[in-house]
């Protein structure tokens, strides 16, 4: 008998189906992968199970008994636990306090912390989830925080663990270690549902896989019976386009973007440590690294949003170090931020007004001191057509557009007027495969137009796909810059991303 069985689950948001008649079964002691593109309905399905969303129709059976959770609390009472993509931890509390948060332990409200810690340590050692129970969450790495989330569920006796994109923030080595933990859990009788869009990981960890596409379940199969190619075809509905990258020889005589020993200290911490890099016209330099190792700082220093403590930044020989953000952008730098809602767009303004965010000081659009609305509208209309942005109208607030269309508007704005350089920080974050391909092709298009591009992505595959050279960023240092050729040693990159310089050197010998 199946441990969990979800039958004909349907859910719609604002008239759009997120799940249509989805069926899902889970056997006891199985690692079951839920595969699909962004927006395919994976997380929605799991949130329905977990009681975060209510379903429109369908039934859920847990150990043969019909259940219907209205909150995660109910789900946890039935020993179902979920780790969200964005962790739900209190940064100012310790690991131990986070794990017991909300529980009425023996001695509540003043439980014996030593006894609790002993229980936590027992769980942690049993599954190899090493953690310092007295450390504060704010001092932990992403990988460690994830361990805390998992211990939290195991401490609550969860039999089923649902993990939403657990490997998104991990280095290849951390991922492998994490999979070892999952295998131990399985051996101990736990069941795991792992939500992901990374096919190689599915092949290595899961027993069975269910593929969702556009809210429908396409297939459920044993992992051993299915190939990577088949999975990707099920997931996308077609074959992936292989992006062709030919080397571009540019002798424009321009320098492109150059960083010379750029350092940044903030709040007494070294955020960037003497970074030097030159990106020639027609070159894409990709930065590989785990999120939070100085990527955001690097990008913002180049744009002038933060000021470097020392070092120089040049654009075609012009020292930009003392220029304002606006002056730098006027030199021809386009900026795609990793956080479009916060940094790139004004969500409550219309498409036209968001195009203005870059062009409102542009003389072309100003007549007698007033903004020439007609011209800006024409410009926006052109952007909507060129980039195939789906919108009800030019006056629609950006909030009502999908993530992909919002990102396209940023691209249209930042890539307008043939920029000499583009700083792209996670340009395809949260986009589905179609939109991702579009973004990547745009970057390559500008590369062939002689644009210097800095690409920062948490997705190593994207970096490998597009970059001419790859720089590994760890704790604000470039641990190495490698030409992206056939000979590139991936495991070495992975070790450097984790800061293991000595092991990486050994490996390369």
């Amino acid at each position, binding site marked *: 008998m199946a441990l969990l069985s979800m039958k004909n689950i349907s859910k719609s948001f*604002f*008239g759009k189906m997120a799940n249509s008649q989805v069926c899902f079964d889970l056997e006891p002691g199985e690692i079951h992968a839920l595969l699909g593109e962004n927006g395919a309905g994976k997380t929605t399905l799991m949130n329905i199970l977990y009681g975060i969303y209510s379903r429109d129709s369908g039934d859920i059976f847990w150990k043969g008994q019909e259940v219907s959770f209205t909150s995660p609390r109910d789900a946890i009472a039935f020993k179902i636990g979920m780790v969200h993509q964005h962790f739900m931890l209190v940064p100012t509390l310790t690991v131990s306090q986070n794990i017991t948060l909300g529980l009425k332990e023996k001695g509540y409200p003043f439980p014996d912390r030593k006894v609790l810690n002993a229980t936590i340590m027992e769980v942690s050692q049993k599954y190899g989830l090493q953690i310092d129970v007295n450390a504060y969450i704010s001092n932990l790495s992403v990988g460690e925080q994830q361990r805390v989330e998992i211990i939290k569920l195991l401490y609550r006796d969860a039999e089923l663990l649902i993990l939403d994109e657990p490997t998104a923030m991990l280095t290849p080595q951390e991922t492998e270690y994490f999979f070892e933990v999952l295998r131990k859990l399985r051996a101990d009788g736990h069941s795991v549902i792992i939500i992901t869009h990374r096919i190689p990981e599915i092949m290595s960890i899961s027993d069975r896989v269910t593929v969702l596409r556009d809210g429908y379940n396409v297939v459920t199969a044993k992992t051993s019976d299915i190939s990577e190619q088949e999975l990707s075809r099920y997931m996308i509905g077609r074959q992936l386009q292989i992006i062709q990258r030919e080397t571009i020889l540019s002798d424009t005589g321009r320098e492109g973007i150059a960083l010379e020993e750029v350092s940044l200290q903030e709040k007494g911490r070294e955020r960037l440590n003497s970074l030097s890099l030159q990106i020639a016209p027609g070159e894409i330099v990709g930065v590989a690294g785990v999120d939070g190792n100085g990527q955001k700082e690097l990008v*913002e220093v180049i*744009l*002038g*949003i933060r000021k470097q403590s020392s070092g120089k930044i040049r654009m075609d020989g012009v020292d930009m170090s003392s220029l*304002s*953000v*606006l*002056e*730098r*952008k006027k030199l021809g730098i386009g*900026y795609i*931020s990793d956080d479009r809602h*916060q*940094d*790139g*767009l*004004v*969500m*409550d*303004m219309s498409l036209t*007004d968001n195009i*203005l*965010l*870059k062009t*409102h*000081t542009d003389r072309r659009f*100003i007549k007698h*001191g*007033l*903004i020439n*609305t007609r011209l800006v509208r024409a410009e926006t209309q052109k952007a909507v057509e060129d980039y195939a942005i789906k919108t009800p109208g030019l006056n629609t607030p950006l909030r009502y557009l999908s993530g992909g269309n919002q990102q396209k508007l940023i691209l249209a704005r930042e890539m307008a007027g043939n920029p000499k350089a583009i700083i792209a920080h996670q340009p395809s974050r949260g986009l589905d495969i179609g939109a991702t391909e579009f973004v990547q092709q745009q970057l390559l298009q500008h590369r062939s137009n002689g644009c210097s591009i800095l690409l920062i992505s948490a997705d190593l595959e994207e970096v490998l796909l597009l970059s001419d050279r790859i720089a590994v960023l760890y704790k604000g240092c470039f641990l190495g810059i490698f030409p992206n050729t056939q000979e590139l040693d991936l495991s070495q990159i992975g070790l450097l991303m984790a800061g293991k310089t000595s092991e990486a050197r050994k490996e390369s010998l």
Partner: protein
Amino acid sequence: MKQFGKLLSYLGIAFLTLSISILLILLVGSSVTQAFSSFLSGIFGSFYSVSEVMVKATPLILTGLGVAVGSRSGFINIGAEGQLYMGAIAVTFIAFWLNDLPAIVMIPLVILGGFVFGGIWSVIPGFLKVRFGISEVITTLMFNYIALSIVGILVRTWLKDPASSLPMSAFLPDGATLPTLISTTRLHAGLLVALISVVLVWLVVWKTPTGYEMRAVGLNPRASKCSGISVYKNIILSSLISGGLAGIAGVCEVSGLHHKLLEGISPGYGYIAIIVALLGKNHPVGVVISALGIAALQVGSLGMQRMAGVPTSISSIIMGVVVLLILARKSLFRRLLTDE
């Protein structure tokens, strides 16, 4: 469907407000029909009563406009009252200092003076906000008390009318008074000043690049910064305009209506301005409409007190109820507003 639901929700608010006012009128033991008829005749009964609505609306438009400009760029100005009084001080001071200037020079000068004084009173909190992160909600509010006290000191000392024993200034020289628009009423040229300000604010905030920057900073300071828009400059600018408009309201009250400086020139216009801006959705046209509405409510309730014996404080209660209902509209009428 959605538009219809929205309309219904506003009708719901009107209905609830009406029910609560009927309840209140019954509570004080008056006749509901008499109360309503005296309320309406208090507003529309005579040419004079209609002009009174305009007189009350003038400072509300100006201060409301000021609060709205501030809100648009994220500067929550609770201090329009104090800025209004600073404007009143400015006009009195300038009028007595340069007392023989002709009106054609004097009027623009006192308006400018009021703008600068009110503006300074609001730029200081603006500066404290952007430079030190001190909440402008608190500083602007505190500045109200300082301004009121300064007026209290001035009307007892330097600006006191030596011919009178009361704490007030002498009458302004003729050159510094705004002309009355219609001779039998109190309606003065301040209304024109207010309406010109409405047009100017609309042009500046909605049509110029600077106004665009101010609105962008108000909606998303982080994105503005990343696009090279100075949050610092725009908050300073919008706080200046915000306080300046409230200062002009003070100028209009003194040179249009009272013709002298005294302590009670504003019955809380600066605070009602916050409601005016809120109901007018921080848009110049909305501000005009809501200022007229609230002025009518106040003038009408005076009529209600005169003829039906219903205390005017009911109008304050109703104003409070309307604000609460508008703020709670989306959750009160959730069923109507979600498309199902």
